[in-house]
């Protein structure tokens, strides 16, 4: 049986999203399709799959992206969907532990990609927000959307700080050990 769940995760909470998907799989609900805030599950044997998420370096349908995904597939993983550059992978738990990264360096590089994404969206919101708020009068559509941009920019700034702190922690661990 299929059922759809609508849920919102912030980009920087991708590990929470992973945990949630694994917890659903443990209950016999295996993710089979993703969309914007939409998760479609299908019944499966409880604990059959382990789920992992990655923000790819290249778009999933580019040559480089496809080469990477087919490499993961050779190792028993399955791409069940993607949203923009976020890819959702799963592998049968019977094949053993499933992780996409096994050392600090590759985890840090992944965080760098996420930081870059958050930073870009943050800059766009900040620019658009500032222009609209300063350039238009009270309660015009532009003014209100500018305020929304600025609000979003504030949230993204917090995200940027949290992600940077996480990266810093990994970097410190990296200086004494490699995985």
């Amino acid at each position: 049986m299929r059922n759809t769940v609508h849920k919102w995760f912030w980009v920087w909470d991708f590990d929470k999203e992973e945990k949630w998907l694994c917890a659903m799989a443990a209950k016999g609900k295996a993710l089979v399709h993703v969309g914007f805030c939409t998760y479609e599950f299908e019944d499966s044997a409880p604990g059959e799959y382990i789920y992992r998420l990655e923000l790819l370096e290249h778009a999933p349908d580019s040559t480089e992206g496809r080469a990477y995904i087919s490499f993961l597939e050779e190792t028993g993983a399955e791409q069940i969907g993607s949203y923009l550059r976020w890819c959702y992978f799963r592998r049968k738990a019977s094949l053993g532990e499933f992780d996409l990264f096994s050392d600090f360096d590759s985890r840090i590089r992944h965080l760098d990609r996420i930081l870059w994404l958050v930073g870009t969206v943050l800059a766009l919101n900040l620019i658009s927000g500032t222009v609209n708020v300063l350039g238009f009068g009270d309660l015009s559509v532009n003014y209100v959307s500018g305020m929304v941009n600025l609000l979003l920019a504030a949230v993204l700034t917090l995200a940027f700080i949290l992600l940077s702190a996480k990266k810093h922690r990994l970097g410190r661990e990296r200086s004494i050990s490699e995985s």
Partner: protein
Amino acid sequence: MNFANGALTEAVYYILLSLLEPRHGYGIMQNAQTLSGGRVRLAAGTLYGALNTLLEKGWIRAMPGEGNSRKKEYVITEAGQEVLRQEIMRLEELVRNGRALLEEVHHEEYGT
């Protein structure tokens, strides 16, 4: 070759060792795990990045594709073998120094 005195990561060391004979990605992961008695688990994303870097450095090369096999196989190059030899010398130095100094401490503590 861009390898003066830098240490290899454990992942790179086991990848190079595994590629003394041609292997594809999953084969490398399994071999590294077997060689290390289950301790070293290379995750696919980490392995993919390392393989690309090693290809760029010329320490490994891709085997010519064989007919209908989709899986790409890799093998170590002469340069890669030289890197392995240097790394083994470096590791021997680490072990030699570690053993000698720890034994010294042991002798001082127990007067043996």
